[in-house]
């Protein structure tokens, strides 16, 4: 009992409402302060910008080195979409006629004009069909540079030779009076393959690279957010302990709103970082265009997205509460990191089983991982994106267990947080921690 037992019911209710309003207000003050303090840190700004800048730098560097190609396959030939000039000096008896859809880069020039352009640096190679062609199927290539070609140059030459072959093939077929539609089929024998089972039913589409990457991207995002944000949480809690300000703060804010404010504020900071990265990726994808291949065609259903957000939020709350308690009971920041590593490992366990997820999404191990609260978020994020249909029973069961666990973890963590935060440089006993969890009020 902490107050007079004779306190009238109405007065107690009024006090309860005032207390709730006060707690929410204080939670907001703590959340705002911790958020602003974190996002203004030099380390945070540096860390947030470093990833997109780094990726941009390496992509630019890669594009520069390769002469503009990172593609993973496409209609422009081996090496993918490449921008280049194909200078051809035709001295053979063939009547070469470039056609835009198939041979868009061909420019027919005289040998003198081609050499002049090589000398002026507006082209790298000149292909010559000598007068002996096609009796002698040897072509001549004159390079502007004497040194060996870099990777980008080799890729460009591959694309040039693919297009030059198409030009010669269509010319030879036309000269042999082959009908244009046959010519078309010769150069592009098929454009699609419809696959069926023995019963005639359509075979499920081949898994694309996107369908493998999406679940990992989601899960990695979750794990990354957990590690980033819990890092901030640990830093914040241990800093207040080490700087001896925690008692002043606790005398103003009860443990639960203090913990909640930190979880929300620092969660928002972690989310800010992730949003910056995701937005950068979203902006960069169209700019990179077809270099991204089918990655740019990833789409997520609204139901999957809503469920993913639910798992993400519940998982973050559960981990956030536990890490706050870890920060409170650790004697120092080093110990806090060690303790946190134990819980943090649980978040990455599903990634260890990722091969199993790809092989058999209905495996019992996947079900077990989905129902263990600490591994639920990462597991279900992968299940949601890999399963052909949402496994509703598993979704309901896992969401329920995760929600219950989050509730219990939050209350227990708040009690541990409150009981151990004021222990300076002391490692509390297991008995004291358990006692704090089951203490009244």
């Amino acid at each position, binding site marked *: 009992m902490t107050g007079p037992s004779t306190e009238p019911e109405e*007065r107690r209710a009024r006090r309860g409402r005032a207390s709730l309003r006060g707690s929410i207000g204080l939670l907001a*003050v703590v959340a705002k302060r911790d958020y602003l303090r974190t996002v203004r840190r030099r380390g945070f700004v540096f860390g947030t910008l470093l990833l997109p800048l780094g990726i941009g730098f390496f992509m630019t560097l890669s594009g520069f080195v390769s002469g503009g190609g990172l593609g993973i396959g496409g209609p422009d030939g081996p090496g993918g979409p490449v921008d280049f000039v194909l200078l051809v000096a035709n001295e053979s008896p063939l009547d070469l006629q470039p056609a835009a859809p198939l041979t868009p880069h061909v420019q027919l020039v005289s040998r003198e004009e081609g050499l002049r352009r090589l000398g002026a640096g507006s082209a790298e190679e000149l292909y010559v069909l000598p007068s002996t062609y096609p009796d002698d199927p040897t072509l001549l290539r004159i390079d502007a540079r004497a040194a060996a070609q870099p990777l980008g140059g080799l890729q460009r030459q591959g694309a040039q030779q693919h297009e030059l072959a198409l030009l010669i093939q269509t010319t030879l077929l036309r000269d042999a009076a082959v009908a244009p539609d046959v010519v078309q089929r010769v150069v592009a024998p098929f454009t699609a393959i419809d696959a069926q089972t023995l019963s005639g039913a359509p075979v499920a589409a081949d898994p694309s690279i996107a369908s493998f990457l999406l679940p990992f991207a989601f899960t990695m995002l979750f794990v990354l957010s957990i590690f980033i944000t819990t890092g901030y949480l640990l830093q914040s809690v241990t800093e207040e302990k080490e*700087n001896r300000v925690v008692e002043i703060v606790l*005398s*103003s804010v*009860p443990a639960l709103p203090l913990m909640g404010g930190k979880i929300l504020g620092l969660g928002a900071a972690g989310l800010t970082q992730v949003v910056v990265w995701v937005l950068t990726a979203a902006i960069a994808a169209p700019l990179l265009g077809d270099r991204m291949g089918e990655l740019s065609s990833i789409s997520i259903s609204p139901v999957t997205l809503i469920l993913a957000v639910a798992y993400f939020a519940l998982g973050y709350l559960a981990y956030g509460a536990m890490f706050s308690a870890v920060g409170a009971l650790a004697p120092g920041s080093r110990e806090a990191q060690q303790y946190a590593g134990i819980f943090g490992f649980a978040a990455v366990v599903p990634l260890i089983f990722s091969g199993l997820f790809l092989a058999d999404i209905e495996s019992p191990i996947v079900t077990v991982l989905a129902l263990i609260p600490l591994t639920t978020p990462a597991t279900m994020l992968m299940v949601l994106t890999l399963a052909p249909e949402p496994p509703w029973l598993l979704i309901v069961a896992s969401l329920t267990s995760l929600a219950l666990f989050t509730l219990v973890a939050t209350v227990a963590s708040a009690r541990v947080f409150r009981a151990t935060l*004021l222990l300076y440089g002391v490692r509390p006993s297991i008995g*004291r921690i358990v006692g704090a969890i089951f203490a009244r009020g």
Partner: protein
Amino acid sequence: MVVVDGVWKRFGNVDVVQDLSFDVRPGEVLGFLGPNGAGKTTTMRMILDIIRPDRGSIAVFGGAPGVEHQARVGYLPEERGLYRDVPVLDTLTYFGALRGLPTAEARRRATRWLEDVGLGPSMKQKAAELSRGMHQKAQVVATVLHDPDLLIVDEPFQGLDPVNAEMLKGVITAQRDRGAAVVMSTHDMADAQTLCDRILLIDKGRRLLYGRVPDIQRAFSDGAVEVRGGGIPMDPQRYRSVSEVSVANGSVRFLLHSDASAQAFFQELAELGAAVERFEVSTPTLNEIFIRTVAGDRRAEAVR
């Protein structure tokens, strides 16, 4: 303003606070005295709702301690500090906001207070860049920034240099004079005697002494009078009021009969022709009372 009634608190197998009762009134300084481990800090934390009592009740401003009262409370803990890599003004603004002040008002008050205590030029410096004395001033400012009605200060003078100790004494008396209730735990009995209106002495979680400082001193007085001067007869038989005479520190110490008064004894001295230069009724200091009580002086029972 604060009523603590029959409070118990146990940690592990130890009753840190046992059946403790007292109150704190507006416009007074209650000295909370006791040896290390007596349960002072635990009791203060229970008043602040940082920890909860196992039994008994605590009322603050007429209700149970809770978040709705925390804007009216100022607390200077024994273990105190500032965010090292944050400008002092920002830290104090945050503490003010936690005590219910709007951010702009908290910043305005913090600025004014920091200027008043001579930290104006340093307010935008990080705490890590400030001297220990500057830290101490800033911590005091954080405690009173929001004009609390109840001020709880735990060993406030510990580690303070004399200049800052004087400043803090001024702050405490100013808060009391404007009507705030002050609970101050201290080991320094001289400070307690100077600043406190009432004292509460506890040991092993139990109340040993509780009351006004002069009343307690009177209760502990042994009826002795110290006299300095010339022509003072040393034979106790020559006095009606005296049972024993001794010399101590250049003064003559008279132990009076229990029914004798100091005034009557003074008249006796005059009648005997003594040239009295100094006449002082001997009362024990709080320090003496503290030592005697905690050592188990039975006279404490009479005051309880």
